[in-house]
């Protein structure tokens, strides 16, 4: 009897319930449901971009117009110039919310509940991260559509080419938004894990967001900004995110904080910008993974 139960128990130890993909899906699903129920999310991914895009184009459009044609040539409207910035801003907001969700889970006990369940721990975090990706994809598509509507209204229905690089470019824009969001998602989770406090996490992520946006190439061409802002913008990741999206949108090399001419056309923007962002993703992602490991491995392993 004892030998039989002994072999039984070792067989039981091998089975790990669901398998990795299912575990990821379970967590992804939970976070997507939570996201759609959160009014803050709906406001920040829908209402806020609309307000910014409409107000900024109406208020600054006329003033910036001249600077735009000077920097990028005629035919670039402020809407098409600004849409990339709003896409990056919304990605930033979504990323900032990631850590808040994590602290929420810790405070509600759900974090521990998942740790004590057979769910794979990597799948637990991956599922949550993917829910943020889904959110970014959806809101990027919405903002692109919104920008189109504004151009359509501006031009009286004669839009011409909206995204210079076409469908591939549109997919590329979503890709850049995701690559861009990773470092800030990691940052917000690091703050969350280090403070384990909701308010600190909200403040930590949001405090950075606005100043960073303004001292970048987001709203006005870099060369029209004061000298010191230009210096800060060179070291500001937002510049690289916005310029990468903008290069795909406008079909030209828009990165002006560092001059790269090794490649051709938009690749002179995309290659350096993505290199910077991916490096940041790995750096902050690594730190976040270290913190997550520490927070969840108080048990065995």
């Amino acid at each position: 009897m004892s030998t039989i139960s002994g072999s039984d128990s070792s067989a039981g130890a091998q089975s790990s319930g669901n398998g990795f993909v299912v575990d990821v899906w379970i967590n992804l699903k939970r976070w997507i449901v939570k996201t759609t129920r959160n009014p803050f999310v709906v406001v920040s991914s829908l209402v806020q971009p609309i307000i910014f895009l409409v107000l900024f184009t109406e208020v600054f459009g006329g003033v910036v117009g001249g600077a735009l044609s000077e920097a990028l040539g005629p035919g670039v409207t402020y809407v098409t110039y600004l849409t990339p910035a709003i896409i990056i801003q919304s990605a930033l907001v979504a990323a900032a919310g990631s850590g808040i969700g994590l602290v929420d889970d810790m405070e509600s006990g759900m974090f521990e509940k998942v740790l004590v369940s057979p769910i794979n721990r990597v799948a637990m975090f991956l599922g949550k991260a993917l829910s943020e990706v889904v959110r970014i994809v959806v809101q990027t598509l919405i903002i692109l559509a919104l920008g189109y509507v504004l151009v359509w209204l501006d031009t009286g229905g004669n839009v011409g080419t909206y995204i210079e690089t076409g469908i591939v470019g549109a997919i590329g824009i979503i890709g850049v938004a995701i690559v861009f969001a990773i470092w800030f998602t990691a940052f917000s989770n690091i703050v969350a894990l280090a403070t384990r406090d909701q308010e600190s996490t909200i403040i930590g992520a949001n405090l950075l967001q606005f100043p960073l946006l303004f001292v970048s190439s987001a709203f006005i061409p870099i060369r029209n900004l004061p000298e010191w802002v230009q210096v800060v913008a060179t070291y500001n990741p937002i510049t690289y995110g916005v310029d990468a999206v903008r290069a795909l949108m406008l079909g030209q090399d828009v990165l002006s904080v560092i001059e790269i001419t090794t490649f051709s056309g938009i690749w002179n923007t995309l290659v350096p910008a993505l290199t910077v962002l991916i490096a940041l993703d790995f750096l902050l992602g690594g730190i976040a993974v270290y913190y997550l490991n520490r927070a969840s491995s108080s048990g065995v392993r």
Partner: protein
Amino acid sequence: MTAIDARHIELTYSDGTQAVEDVTIDIPEGEFFGFLGPNGAGKTTTIKTLVTLLQPTGGDITVNGYDVEAQPQAVRESIGYMAQETSIDEELTARENVQFACEAYGVPKAERTERIDELLELVDLAGVADKVAKEFSGGMKKRLDVATALVHSPPLVFLDEPTTGLDPKARIRLWEYFRNINEQGTTVFLTTQYLEEADELCDRLSVIQDGTIVATDSPDALKSQVGGDVLEIALVDPTDETTTRARRVARDAGLFEEGTVETTDQGISVASERARQAGPDLLVALRDADITVTGFDVRSPTLDDVFLAITGHPAGEQADDEATERSAELEGEVQ
């Protein structure tokens, strides 16, 4: 078979706090086991090592036949755990909460709907199944938490102070569920600071103090350790001076062959085999000593008396706040 076989568990946090010094627990399948102790005695830390959330710094633990350190995954699959703090996702509905737990524990899809309905029925939440949990009362949330811990019909369930902070009605209702589950064959490991809860539910219990188990037995056997009945005497002026005098009278009167005398809030209490017979004589002796008695009562011993006799202080009294906070912390890095 043994549900839990833990020998000499020891857990010292990285800051040097020794939350659990030496805990040995042996629980047969099907038992309703109680783990009783004041705040900070090491209850939560012990339970967290049993459910694989904390790694013990010493000792051997087997849960459902699996080693918690070598086979944590198998342990996690075979247990249900309800944390001290209610752990549900308030943004999800009751049904979604149970569904998430079903998915997490790999309840087969074909059985899921039925299982969810059955569990919501069990905890009386079927009527509000599709309401978001945020709107629930504390008791309802707790009951939902119970349901999520039972999705996979685990043979062993850990309940960490499941009724703390609930009103008496909600508490009695939860007791019924727990008793139900246990009658269906589930082993239950319950921690509590409520003596009447342990008395009501448990087949056997251990009393833990300062990280060490100080007594293990059935509630009745523990009560009989107190030795006889308890005589409570209320004094008109229960100051230190009068109670000390009253205790001396009770000891020196030669009325009780054996027994213990303690100070209480109202006066003194005497636990003795002869409490009933010698009670009136003690009242006379107190009157002769000019101590005014305002009330007296002879009753059977409760676990409170056991607790007092074993640990030297009443249950619920804070033993070591720091240790509780430490053990409640999620991270709980261990050395």
